[in-house]
């Protein structure tokens, strides 16, 4: 990993403006900055959700994100990449995940950000437990997420 890549797994929240500033600081060659923020929804599969608990596999998480980012760097002309994922207890509306990518032109940043999110969803070892009106429940992986990631191989 080099100075152009930031990976952080953290319990605390992040500040979107600060993260964008880090991507832009001393970076005059990139004209495009694409960011994605994932948040905790109040409903899933018809049930009201009151919060989430996020677990991960320390060590493997960082390694798998490094690999995904490396693949994106091989595939597109991108400048800086930042991935933040929160763990622990999260309430409705809280930020869960941040992906930020810079590039000279927008197409590469858009594509790389989507690629990183799609593979984070199916390869990075995170697990969500939902707190719903009917109790706690570990989320099942979605087949559509696999299909979404698979599309990049076509």
């Amino acid at each position, binding site marked *: 990993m080099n100075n152009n890549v930031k990976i952080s797994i953290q319990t605390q929240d992040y500040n979107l403006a600060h993260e964008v500033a880090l991507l832009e600081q001393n970076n005059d060659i990139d004209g495009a900055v694409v960011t994605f923020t994932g948040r905790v929804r109040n409903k899933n599969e018809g049930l009201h959700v009151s919060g989430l608990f996020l677990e*991960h596999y320390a060590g493997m998480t960082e390694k798998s994100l490094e690999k995904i980012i490396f693949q994106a760097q091989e595939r597109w002309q991108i400048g800086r990449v930042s991935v933040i994922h929160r763990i622990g207890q999260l309430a409705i509306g809280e930020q869960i995940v941040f992906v930020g990518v810079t590039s000279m032109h927008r197409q590469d940043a858009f594509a790389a950000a989507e690629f990183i999110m799609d593979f984070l969803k199916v390869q990075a*070892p995170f697990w969500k437990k939902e707190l719903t009106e009917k109790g706690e429940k570990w*989320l099942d992986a979605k087949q559509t997420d696999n299909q979404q990631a698979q599309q990049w191989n076509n």
Partner: protein
Amino acid sequence: MIKIVFFAALREQLNCAELSIPANEVSSIADIKTKLADKNEHWQQVFSNGALLCALNHDMVQADAEVKSGDEVAFFPPVTGG
């Protein structure tokens, strides 16, 4: 020894976060799975779940991957982050 770790729903089902297996008793991930499933009926049932994923030293692997002393092997359900 080989360190085995479990995560998320799997850890809760087994009521076990980690254990160790002597390296001379197994040579592959498939061997480890068989050995764990042989513990008792409950473990047998839990490990019959074909969707379980496996990592060897923090890399995803298939059941035919070979293991040696000092390795860390993880079993977990399909991931649901993001």
